[in-house]
């Protein structure tokens, strides 16, 4: 029926025929869009580099006047410096807040109408949701080499081998992905710019302090220890800390974080498929 006389000789762009409409192409397109948008923003790049230095410089120096032997007693570990203890915990807590970016990006797409443009194509809400979560996780992961590099510059010694380090990065990636999924599920139906910030504060603060990321949970009151025992941030931090301090790993901790990520992605996908608003 289509005349398209001026387009004679131009190869037709055909959709791949399918009944189930696979989502691979849409997934790749939306994920690459997320990554491009993030890393084309100069402020994101500057903050990604500067923030780890600030964390380590300010927070890492908070016990600099305390003798090492007293720190060992306080932190229940044989450490070279508080920075060495802090590094895995800081990386874990940095993964807590990254879901906020995916959530803000989703709300931006809703408010500017781009979500409609996406969803008037054969793209499922679950695909949109997962690409946002993965995009945010990628953004969070970029901070890891920067922070590790900063720690090395501050004189921190990191034990372990490439296999253990790969496991450590995997634990952080899974933790970040899990929290991104949780974050996006909570804000799936929101179109308010303020929501991600409020939810971030609500989630980040208690989970950061009620974990073994910054201080050992053995020092906590009993009720906080219960929270820390369930908190996946604790396990990602402990997994990394064992590697950094002694070059050993409790792989069960990685398993726990993977379980958390799996549960979050399953719940989040269901929630987003049902409640992700178009505008």
């Amino acid at each position, binding site marked *: 029926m289509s*005349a398209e006389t*001026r387009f004679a000789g131009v*190869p037709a762009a055909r959709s791949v025929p399918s009944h189930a409409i696979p989502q691979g192409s*849409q997934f790749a397109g*939306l994920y690459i869009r997320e990554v491009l948008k993030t890393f084309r923003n100069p402020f994101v790049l500057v903050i990604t580099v500067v923030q780890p230095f600030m964390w380590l410089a300010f927070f890492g120096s908070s016990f600099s006047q305390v003798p090492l032997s007293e720190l060992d007693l306080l932190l229940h570990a044989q450490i070279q410096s508080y920075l060495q203890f802090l590094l895995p915990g800081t990386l874990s807590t940095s993964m807590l807040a990254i879901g906020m970016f995916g959530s803000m990006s989703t709300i931006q797409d809703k408010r500017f109408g781009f979500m409609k443009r996406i969803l*008037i194509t054969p793209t499922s809400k679950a695909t949109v949701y997962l690409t946002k979560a993965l995009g945010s996780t990628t953004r969070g992961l970029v901070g890891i080499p920067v922070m590790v590099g900063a720690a090395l510059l501050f004189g921190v010694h990191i034990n372990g081998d490439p296999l253990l380090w790969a496991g450590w990065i995997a634990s952080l990636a899974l933790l970040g992905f899990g929290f991104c999924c949780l974050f996006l599920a909570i804000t799936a139906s929101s179109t308010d710019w303020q929501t991600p910030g409020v939810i971030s504060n609500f989630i980040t603060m208690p989970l950061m302090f009620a974990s073994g990321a910054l201080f050992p949970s053995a020092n906590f009151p009993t009720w906080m220890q219960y929270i820390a025992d369930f908190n996946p941030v604790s396990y990602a931090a402990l997994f990394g800390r064992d590697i950094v301090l002694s070059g050993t790993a409790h792989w069960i901790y990685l398993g726990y974080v993977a379980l958390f990520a799996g549960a979050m992605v399953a719940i989040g996908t269901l929630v987003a498929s049902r409640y992700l608003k178009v505008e």
Partner: protein
Amino acid sequence: MAPDAIVTQGLTKHYGKLVAVDHVDMRVPSGSVFGLLGPNGAGKTTIIKVLTGLSDITEGEAAVAGYDVRRDPMHVKQNVGWVAAEVILDDDLSGWENLWLQAKLQRLDNWKDRAEALLRYFSLGDRRKDKVGTYSTGMRKKLEIALALLHQPQVIFMDEPTIGLDPSTRHMLWELIRGVHTEFGISVLLTSHYIEEADALCDLISIIDHGRFVATGSPTELKAKVKADLIDLETVEAVDEARFRAIPGVSDVRAQGKGWILRVSSAEEVLPRLLATLRADGIRRINVEKPSLETVFLDVTGRRIGQDEGEVLDYRKFYAQMRRARR
């Protein structure tokens, strides 16, 4: 004969207690430009949302491009294009990257040659690498239409495509829409509240008011239905409706704000009688309208298109006066 591009039966959409679309039966012949003409809030955009699967259907049936919208929305989406009222593009990406993303979302192979051809057709080839945020409004509209055409859809939905544009850009877009329809042979469902736009572009028009279709036909058929001239007037002194009705040739009288709308067999014959009748009362304003889509709308709804937005315009005037007063 090709099947209809869009068919609906009893299509209804509720938002809570609000009935946005009320039992709409529609048949859009393949290859035609079908216009939905109605004021803001009449339900035009809602119809597009439910037909594209963006919003669930509350009641009724709809098929687009041969696919059932309820049961097979993904295949509907594979076969439709969309041009939004507000231009919706990713401003952080270039024109080419927007096309690339559309190709990924529509799962296209060998899309680059077609994208190149579309950019040439819309005279955007030179700016393809520039971020869309730097494009003029006209260029953005053109790119949006190119996106809608990239995957060779069977139906394109154009939701108020020229709203907010200056007259010259609007006319340029009219030419483009006519060209796209002729060149690509695609069925177009176009919504508008600009009467002259619907008249200029559409083969068939449905007038929609409060979610219901109140008249459907070609522009010529609709105008022929009125079979009357309208006289729109406002008098200085209050006039009894019975005085208008007593004038030979006046078939209907309606109050319209502070004035009156008279439906007459022939304005040329009735006007001298009317002026003679109202000589003593004084006429503040009088306007004669020959059959047009405007008079059709007035005839079937009892209101002028955009009349309900008068209060908003008054607020704008009010705020403009406030700003001037502050200076």
